[in-house]
């Protein structure tokens, strides 16, 4: 539904987006990850036709966004960053305005407004002026605007930014539910969100895609992926480290935390295996040694760690230059 080819955007000498290509099909929720200033919003502005690309192409439902913007824009619902809305309108007026620009008239318009008001829990503020809304409500008002025409494609720039935990949860559920029938791109820098909602994630750093895969695939890249975390009671840390490090399947063992009553160690596997064999060997060793085990599990890998590993070193390099 969305196809982006070698997208480039330069602002003066700066390449804010630098050769980004990907595609999103119906039924997919694509998470757009990246540190601040990575070029997420700029990419989304090009996809939604707000700014023209310096180079490259955007196809939306087969229409070229530059050559044929009107039919392309019809298919998209867009929630810009910071959820802008006309402050001099009421929520109702604003949603009706959006519906009219989307070509909805009369009864259809009323139905559409009622539908999104219900979906986004706006009943209580419908006649309130936008500038008196709390941030969460204003965000949801703008979100409601983006789905008013039930678009096939949704582009959401930080849709959970500024919401409280309950609202975040609601919005995530909404995105996941809508993602079954639509193609959705949303940007975020909250990593749990990616695991909770996305079927695929792209990590972008300084304008370039640095990783692209399902959240599980990305987690595999983590150092922790396949490592076994173990908590042992009443044994000195050094003993635990040496004994577990000597297991043939283990590459090394490290102490995470040594408290008076317990030791928390992490054992890294040889190679990239994560089939649970390492955990079984550790259980056998503990049994033989007579250790009291409080906790034992194989780690899946952590997205935040992958994220940092991919996006941080270069930033540090840049700063040191």
């Amino acid at each position, binding site marked *: 539904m969305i196809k982006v080819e070698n997208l480039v955007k330069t602002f003066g000498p700066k390449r804010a987006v630098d050769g980004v290509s990907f595609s999103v099909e119906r039924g997919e929720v694509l998470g757009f990850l990246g540190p601040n200033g990575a070029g997420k919003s700029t990419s989304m502005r090009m996809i939604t036709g707000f700014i023209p690309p310096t180079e490259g192409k955007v196809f939306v439902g087969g229409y070229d966004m530059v050559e044929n913007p009107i039919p392309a824009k019809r298919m*998209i619902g867009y929630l810009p960053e910071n959820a*802008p809305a006309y402050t001099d309108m009421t929520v109702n007026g604003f949603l009706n305005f959006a519906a009219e620009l989307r070509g909805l008239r009369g009864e259809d318009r009323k139905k559409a407004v009622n539908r999104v008001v219900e979906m986004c829990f706006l009943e209580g503020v419908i006649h309130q002026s936008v500038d008196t809304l709390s941030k969460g409500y204003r965000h949801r008002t703008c979100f409601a605007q983006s789905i008013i025409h039930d678009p096939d494609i949704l582009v959401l720039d930080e849709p959970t930014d500024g919401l409280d935990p309950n609202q975040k949860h609601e919005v995530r559920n909404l995105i996941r539910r809508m993602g079954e029938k639509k193609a959705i791109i949303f940007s975020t820098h909250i990593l749990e969100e990616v695991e909770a909602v996305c079927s695929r994630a792209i990590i972008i750093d300084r304008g370039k895609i640095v990783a692209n895969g399902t959240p599980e695939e990305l987690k595999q890249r983590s150092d922790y992926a396949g490592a076994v975390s173990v908590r042992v009671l009443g044994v000195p840390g050094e003993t635990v480290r040496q004994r577990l490090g000597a297991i043939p399947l283990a590459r090394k063992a490290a102490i995470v935390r040594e408290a008076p009553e317990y030791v928390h160690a992490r054992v890294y596997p040889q190679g990239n295996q994560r089939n649970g064999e390492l955990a079984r060997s550790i259980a056998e060793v503990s049994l033989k040694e007579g250790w009291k085990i409080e906790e034992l599990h194989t780690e899946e890998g952590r997205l935040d760690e992958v994220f940092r590993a991919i996006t941080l070193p270069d930033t540090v390099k840049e700063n040191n230059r």
Partner: protein
Amino acid sequence: MNSAVANVRTIAKRELGGYFASPVAYVFIVIFLLLCGFFTFMLGGFFERREASLVSFFLWHPWLYLFLVPAAGMRLWSEERRLGTMELLLTMPITAWQAIVGKFLASWLFLALALALTFPVVMTVNYLGDADNGVIFCGYIGSLLLAGAYLAVSCLTSAMTRNQVISFIISVVICLFLILAGWPPVTNLLVRWAPEWLVSGVVAFSVIPHFDGFQRGVLDSRDLIFFLSIIGFSLFATGVIIRNLRSGH
């Protein structure tokens, strides 16, 4: 085509609603009417003239509009930029032209409404004497076109910045130039050193001779074209500025 008209209307309706959603519209209209009355009756010597015409009423419009029209137009695009709603508006399935024209027409309509509320002065001259309503009508057309020209300039300056005050000041300066360009003290100043073509070029920009044409009751197509081309040019330039903003230059 139909949808273009519908889009322009939707945008204009919203913009007009925006004026009346705050007290600004009412304050504006009251100030406009008060100043109109003040200029006409106190400075213009409406009664002293002892003639049933609105010369003293229209005489001051170029100066009155100089501040009031930029005040009405300064928010058009700068507010859109400040709130970030421009991104919302221009990613809707509409063209930038529809948005520019819709917003302009809404403000123009608002000014037309304020102007229409001066109707008591027309009734007064008709009551006092035998007024030539053709000339008066013509005067109103001229005044409306003048307001439209200033407004288009304000529209242009409001697209240049997200700061309404700056937008206001720049547009007052440009409008002042449009008034003064044909004013003898200014042209005399120019004549001393500027080449002939530059002087006549500057004078050609002056709104006053064209405005005066309407006040004499002459509907000259050249005057009409003059105002319409200022409007057209300014709106076109607004479109160029918005396009440049979007491409990030």
